[in-house]
């Protein structure tokens, strides 16, 4: 496998009326080509902000720390995303090397422009195709994602398509420029389970075919289990656990990951009552000191958890957890 993305020490703050808010703190991960990484966490955990940082899509009041480094490795060289400024320079990645699919497909299509025109427009911007070729490629992509009668759909508007169709069209559009990295932000959350299953299958097929890397954001661990190769769990702007998907789901190590799994309704076991994680996710304005999860953690060790930010400890190779419980040396 070849390395596609290196994200190092991503730290991001927002300047707001209520002061400077830390949204993301010290996140690092890597992604290989052809690999799907799931990014999970509750709302407010910073998963979308992390994903948007990769395309520098965060609003103007976003302040990245100086040591934040995001490198995208392409066949024809490397791109340091943090050093790109202005929409002209960012055009290389936005819609070019990196594409993004959003949660609400209705909101991501322009309502008064046909699906086809929108697909053609981005191909004209990012490739050197002419209009006729762009149209052919677009229709071919619509066909590839399982939209029946693509030539007719090409001329239709977003409101004429059902939710599942729109999401397929969105995927077709995102992939038509042959991006190396696809960021999918809750792409199946607004869909019914049966349609969700279809979209998941489609995305898996497309990864095999195009060999791009995917950052897959979702709050649904079941979806992660079915799509991702590895998973990173986020809480309040920090990574708390990451590793191969089988490892993390079968042997969850961080109390937060364990809590998330225990809160899921499990069809195989209807008798055990659901166990919620106590309390709510704190406001980013009142970030807890030390380990950010200590206010809701059942395994809270006391002063160490409230004052010291936990490092990453290795559970087994490739599976890391940021929790003091795993510090075998420091516990003495």
């Amino acid at each position, binding site marked *: 496998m070849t390395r596609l993305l290196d994200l190092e020490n991503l730290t991001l703050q927002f300047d707001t009326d209520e002061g400077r808010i830390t949204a993301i703190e010290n996140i690092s991960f890597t992604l290989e080509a052809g690999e799907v990484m799931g990014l999970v966490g*509750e*709302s407010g955990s910073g998963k979308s902000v992390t994903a948007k940082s990769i395309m520098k899509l965060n609003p103007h009041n976003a302040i990245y720390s100086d040591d934040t480094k995001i490198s995208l490795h392409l066949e024809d060289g490397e791109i340091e995303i943090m050093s790109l400024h202005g929409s002209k320079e960012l055009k290389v990645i936005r819609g070019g090397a990196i594409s993004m699919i959003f949660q609400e497909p209705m909101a991501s299509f322009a309502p008064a422009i046909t699906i086809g025109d929108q697909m053609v427009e981005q191909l004209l911007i990012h490739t050197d195709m002419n209009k006729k070729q762009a149209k052919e490629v677009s229709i071919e992509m619509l066909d590839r994602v399982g939209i029946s009668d693509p030539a007719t759909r090409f001329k239709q508007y977003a409101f004429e398509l*059902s*939710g*599942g*169709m729109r999401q397929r069209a969105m995927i077709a559009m995102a992939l038509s420029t042959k991006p190396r990295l696809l960021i999918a932000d809750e792409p199946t959350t607004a869909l*019914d*389970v*049966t*349609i*969700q*299953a*279809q979209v*998941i*299958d489609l995305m898996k097929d497309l990864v095999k075919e195009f060999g791009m890397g995917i950052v897959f954001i979702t*709050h*649904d*661990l*079941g*979806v992660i*289990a*079915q799509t991702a190769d590895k998973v990173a769990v986020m809480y309040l702007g920090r990574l708390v656990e990451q590793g191969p*998907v*089988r490892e993390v*789901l079968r042997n969850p190590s961080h109390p937060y990951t364990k*809590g*998330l*799994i225990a*809160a*899921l*309704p*499990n*069809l195989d076991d*209807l008798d055990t*009552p*659901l*166990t*919620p*994680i106590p309390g*709510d*996710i704190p406001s980013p304005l009142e970030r807890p000191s030390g380990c950010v999860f200590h206010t809701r953690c059942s395994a809270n060790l006391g002063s160490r958890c409230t004052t010291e930010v936990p490092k990453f400890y290795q559970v087994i190779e490739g599976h890391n957890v940021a929790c003091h419980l795993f510090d075998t040396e420091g516990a003495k």
Partner: protein
Amino acid sequence: MSDDILIKARDLSVHYQLSGGAVFGPKPVVKAVEGVNLDIAKGSFFGLVGESGSGKTTLGRACLKAAPITRGTVTYSDEEVEFELTNISKPELKEYRRRAQLIFQDPYAALSPRMTVRDIIAEPLEVMGLTKTREETDERVREIAAKCRLNLEHLRRFPHAFSGGQRQRISIARALVSRPHFVVADESVAALDVSIQADVLNLLKEIQQEMGLTFLFISHDLSVVAHVCDHVAVMYLGRLVETAPTRDLFFKPRHPYTKALLSAIPSLDPDDHGSAQKLEGEIPSPTNPPPGCKFQTRCAFAVDHCRKVEPKLEHSSTSHEVACHRWQELMD
């Protein structure tokens, strides 16, 4: 036996006439609910599942007389009163509104941002004239707020100060303050994070047992329904296709649609890709439903008979009903 039934629907249909269509031709009609027979037992937690567009919300609303009933009857009977909703008188309807309440999906849209939590919860009491003095109102509000695990100090605050889970508890308190017998919860946990979802589900279940309520729980999430409901009905394109006690339905599904829905739930086990019954296509438009069995366009087992004759709900056991011509052949 019939004394135990709180809501009894017979041949219930809700049709909406759309505008448009041919200039002098008939206007298109959406048959949102068609010929539904439904018995909801007193004190049960009755689940209603289906994809979007299946008519579950409309059916729930028809049971509250909040949707126009085109044909058929809905009868509500508790220990004190019996109402026939199709020709209910105005004073009776007012009384019914006290006895039957609705909890909405989106806790962000359902609460007025300009009212304090106390006023939001007290409003039903004041509108229905259930309390005479302010002290009495306050006491009822505090009592229900405590039951819904709301901090009494929070009653003076406005909804914006609360998280999604807390807001949903406020809307639950508002629905329950008039001491209803019947509550329709329409996707009440769909907008919540898993850990908060678990908390709200536990709360609903607790309150239901404590107050002896009857719930109609509408959801698209089968695993949630499996955990809280004791009886489940599955809807497809305005029809009930299967109804059974929860365990029966989940462990011995009879209808191909129910089976497909169950297999579409993404498993937490990365190596379990579900059985191979993935559904193709999408739910057809209710303005133009297919002839015969409504599910035949997506059913892998459809034969000629299914395309011509619509199956009726029949008993597969005393408490298990299914609407499929071939359920006996398809039994594993």
